[in-house]
């Protein structure tokens, strides 16, 4: 009996440790990014890192301004947002409100499968189909542009937007809709005037999480945006994002060099962006009605 009590005590402590391990891992990730990245700021200041216009990490002395990379990420993300937000939200409304029950399940599975396609496969498909199309349609010297990246990334943001927004729409109390219908509204009027506003904070969270996924996406973006680290003047030019810079250059960076520190400092920037996006989205999701 005492033996069993002791065993259970150990097990319960182990369960508690694993429960809190997640906090430990998030902290560990941030600490190790700081450990390797902060050394950069002994060499250059934070403003000249974030706002520097030139990224020439292997010139002598290296120029480590990430403004072109930030703008590259923004261009691609902005384009993906314009495409994915209306389509994603509309799809969520269709699944939550219009689709018959059995079709609904099929659609949800389809969207799960879209989310499951590895980003390197999407990048590959983008390279062989979308990139030549963009080049041909817009008469460009290369199809590896910000807009190609935006289109592919839109499809990576949509599953997130659809599933979170659908949850938000689904959790609107039935009485809201029934009230609107009883007052003589059509189904669409009830959706547009009652259900959508009631679910607005959840939909906003869905949009934020979708955009968060786009900013952090790496492989597809590296394969189809052309990777040129200059300040872009239009979306029809090659760009290089924050994520692609890390993925493309870390293999060559010498451990302990300024270049290496700078790539980790970009990692800190990305971590902080995703942290801010996720915490804000979480606040919206848990907002009390």
């Amino acid at each position: 009996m005492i033996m069993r009590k002791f065993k259970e005590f150990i097990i319960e402590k182990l369960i508690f440790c694993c429960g809190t391990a997640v906090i430990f891992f998030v902290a560990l990730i941030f600490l190790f990014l700081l450990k390797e990245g902060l050394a950069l700021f002994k060499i250059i200041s934070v403003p000249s890192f974030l706002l520097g216009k030139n990224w020439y990490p292997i010139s002598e002395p290296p120029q480590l301004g990430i403004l072109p990379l930030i703008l590259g990420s923004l261009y691609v993300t902005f384009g993906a947002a314009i495409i994915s937000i209306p389509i994603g939200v509309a799809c969520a409304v269709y699944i939550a409100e219009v689709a018959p029950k059995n079709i609904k399940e099929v659609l949800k599975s389809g969207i799960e499968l879209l989310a499951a396609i590895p980003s390197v496969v999407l990048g590959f498909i983008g390279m062989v189909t979308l990139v030549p199309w963009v080049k041909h349609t817009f008469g460009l010297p290369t199809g590896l542009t910000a807009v190609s990246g935006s289109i592919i990334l839109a499809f990576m943001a949509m599953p997130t937007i659809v599933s979170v927004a659908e949850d938000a729409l689904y959790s609107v109390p039935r009485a809201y809709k029934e009230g609107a219908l009883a007052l003589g509204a059509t189904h669409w009027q009830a959706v547009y005037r009652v259900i959508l506003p009631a679910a607005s904070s959840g939909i906003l969270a869905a949009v934020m999480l979708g955009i968060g996924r786009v900013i952090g996406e790496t492989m597809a973006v590296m394969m189809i945006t052309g990777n040129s680290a200059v300040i872009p003047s239009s979306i029809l030019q090659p760009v290089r994002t924050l994520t692609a810079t890390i993925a493309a250059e870390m293999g060559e960076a010498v451990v302990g060099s300024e270049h290496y520190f700078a790539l980790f400092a970009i990692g800190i920037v990305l971590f902080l962006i995703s942290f801010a996006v996720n915490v804000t989205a979480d606040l919206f999701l848990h907002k009390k009605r």
Partner: protein
Amino acid sequence: MKLNSQRTQNIAFFFLFLATFLVVLPVGLIVLVIIQKGLPAINWQFLTDIPRQGMRAGGIFPAIVGTIYLVAGAIIFALPIGLLAAIYLSEYSKDTLLTRIIKLAIVNLAGVPSVVYGLFGLALFVIFLKFGASILSGSLTLGIMILPIIITTSREALESVPYSFREVSLSLGASKWQTIRHIVLPNAIPGILTGTILGLGRAAGETAPILFTVAAFYLPRLPESIFDQAMALPYHLYVISTQVPNVDEKTRYGTALVLLTLVLVMNLVAIIIRYQFRKKKKW
């Protein structure tokens, strides 16, 4: 007036349908194109031979094996921790600040960009713990990455077991842990399995976390220990489609097909298990 609003509704619903079509259509198209162009490349030699002539000929066997090792390593690490964490959240935690922070940490862990996982794995496992670029480093990095998936799905499965099951068990004199072990867990197994498979699929498809922690550009032999580097399918697809010139298109599509099949089959299995479980659920 009535006619007008009815027409507005029809137009609106048509556009909603169109949007849904636009989201789902690419899945079908991508799968179709990859099957159509990749299937001719698939034969026994392609699946079981090592890459030859600078990856322009031969097969992708080492990449398949590498991916299996990595995924197995990730799940060995992530499943016990993830399951116990899910048990904590569903059975033990109360509505406290600590619980709130844990949930927020899960959301954040799920949101960390995959390439940042790569940096973290490089700094902690490869350099600080001196595991080097190895299967061990890659598996641990992938394991931490899939923790949120396993925790979230397992927790849902545990919480869907009705409260009355626990009350009956406790009233018969079983302890809390006995109740979890013999009543709650067995009833949650399909859900936990779903989460595990989804985690496996995610780990198999990710490239960025393994870039600097394990992936070998070209290694025409099988890894011998967990401290060896290894090739992996997603990285191999990246390499032959962007880094190596003049690779036969068929080989690229074939590699994409193998990777896509692996990942989509796992996801389909997870969806089917979940569906069957919901249908059979007695409560």
